[in-house]
């Protein structure tokens, strides 16, 4: 996989920003889109657009085949047993809320516990807080070690038969840390707890299958893996999907609607209320095709190479602190750091003047910011189109920031 060839597929990468060549280092927030994805959606709107599932005419049939085809592609990408195990959601956040409202609201009671980690994205915290409010269940958090890993040393004391849900990030969007999946899933299973992996960062960046992961649910977003905004997926174990209630009600998710109650359509439709994001599903399918063609092993190898290089070069900058593991086998390509007393937002503005786009802030992980004892971090994150030269541009711009801020 050659990032230079890959770049040719991404129209936005030839843009200039503030007179400089764009260096896009915010793929952990959202990735750029290859022309193959943009064109797939265009083609849908220009030639096949219709509502799915309910039409008895050619366009509707084509749209349905494209929409269901995308579901199948995503299922293959995850090596799922059946496309039916793949629910198309509005993104990771929506998927976690779907489990929280569809399973949690019906199955949790006072005294029950939900176990998270302190490195979770708000998407994997706030839905559970809402459900705790409605059911009386309680949240617990696994702490982190000093080297930015999930601390499982006390796991047996924390997980017991009150633990009903174990939900954790497969890869942290702040630290890059890849979670101790197998250990957490096994511990959860031993007490009969339901498991969810927030795969928003993991699935786009690492070759994996739902069998490898072993969780009950794996959720992720298209826009972080070359796909469009507005769509994501929730893979779930068939027994659980069948037993679970829908979160949202509306058209397409019903078998019958009487005045006072309704019965549900089969999985996965039960969870897809209303007109789905059709063009978005098709774009998602095209993104999965693109990644499959690159090969997820190659995607991961490139990410390890660029992350290693970035960590080494960042290490050369005085007064710079990286938050996250140094061992690239335990991490992805989201690299958080602070530089002297320069606030991350100032850093982002200074870098932007050089065309370098990084993120600054709490990265939707305020509990983690408190653990790290910083109000915010700067974060550079990499994907298939980033080059080592772009890391050099980042480093040069950071030197510039040191100079502007008179860091001794």
């Amino acid at each position, binding site marked *: 996989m050659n990032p230079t060839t890959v770049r040719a597929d991404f129209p936005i990468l030839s843009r200039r920003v503030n007179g400089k060549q764009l260096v896009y280092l915010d793929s952990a927030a959202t990735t750029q889109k290859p022309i193959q994805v943009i064109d797939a959606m265009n083609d849908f709107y220009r030639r096949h657009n219709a509502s799915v*599932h*309910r*039409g*008895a005419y050619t366009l*509707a*049939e084509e749209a*349905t085949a494209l929409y269901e085809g995308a579901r199948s592609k995503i299922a293959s990408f995850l090596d799922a047993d059946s496309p039916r195990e793949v629910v198309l959601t509005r993104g990771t956040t929506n998927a976690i809320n779907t489990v929280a409202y569809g399973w949690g609201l019906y199955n949790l009671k006072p005294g029950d516990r939900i176990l998270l980690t302190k490195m979770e994205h708000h998407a994997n915290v706030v839905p559970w807080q809402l459900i705790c409010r409605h059911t009386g269940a309680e949240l617990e958090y696994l702490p982190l070690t000093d080297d930015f890993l999930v601390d499982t040393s006390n796991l047996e004391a924390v997980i017991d038969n009150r633990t009903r849900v174990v939900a954790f990030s497969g890869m942290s969007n702040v630290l890059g840390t890849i979670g101790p999946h197998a250990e957490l899933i096994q511990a959860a299973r031993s007490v009969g707890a339901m498991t969810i992996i927030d795969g928003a960062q993991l699935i786009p960046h690492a070759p994996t299958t739902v069998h490898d992961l072993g969780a009950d649910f794996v959720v992720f977003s298209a826009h972080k893996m070359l796909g469009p905004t507005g769509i994501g997926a929730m893979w779930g174990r068939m027994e659980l999907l069948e037993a679970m209630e829908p979160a949202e009600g509306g058209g397409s998710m*019903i*078998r019958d609607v009487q005045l006072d109650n309704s019965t549900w*359509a*089969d999985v996965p*439709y039960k969870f897809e209320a209303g007109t789905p994001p059709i063009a978005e599903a098709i774009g998602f399918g095209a993104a999965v095709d693109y990644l499959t063609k690159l090969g997820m092993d190659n995607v991961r190898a490139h990410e390890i190479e660029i992350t290693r290089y970035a960590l080494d070069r960042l290490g050369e900058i005085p007064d710079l602190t990286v938050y996250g593991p140094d061992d690239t086998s335990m991490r992805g390509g989201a690299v958080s750091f602070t530089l002297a007393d320069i606030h991350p937002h100032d850093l982002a503005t200074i870098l932007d003047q050089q065309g370098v786009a990084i993120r600054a802030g709490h990265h939707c992980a305020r509990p983690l910011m408190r653990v790290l004892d910083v109000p915010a971090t700067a974060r550079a994150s990499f994907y298939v189109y980033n080059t080592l030269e772009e890391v050099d541009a980042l480093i040069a711009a950071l030197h510039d920031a040191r100079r502007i801020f008179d860091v001794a």
Partner: protein
Amino acid sequence: MSLEELYRQVILDHYRNPRRSGSIEQADAHAEGHNPLCGDEVTIEVMIDDGVIVDAAVRGRGCSISQASASMMADAIVDKSLESVATLTRQVKSMLDIEDGNPGLDPERPGSVLGDLEALAGVKQFPVRIKCADLPWTTLEEALATTD
């Protein structure tokens, strides 16, 4: 086969004059089938004696294809052994291209074994309607599965 031929051949006849329409008081097996996307409904009841379907009744509402398919099916399965009904079901489904990788009958050279049912092969050209033709057969499978 044009759509017009499809309808004219036998579908309309079975739609307007459904065979074995009604119910059986003390059925040995029954099932209700439902296509949530288009609303077709079929209820099937059969009496079985010593491994042979001795009576069948169907009720339902829906498009001509689902109802004609049910009518043809009811006609075709009576006095057949459970094994040959299973084979027939497989043949119809393969004719409708429902089982992946299964070659199916050649719609250009229809044999005579399936009689009226051959008309269903034409449905294959109208992919959204395949589910309609299939509904009675899947429902029959469900009904018979309860007798195992």
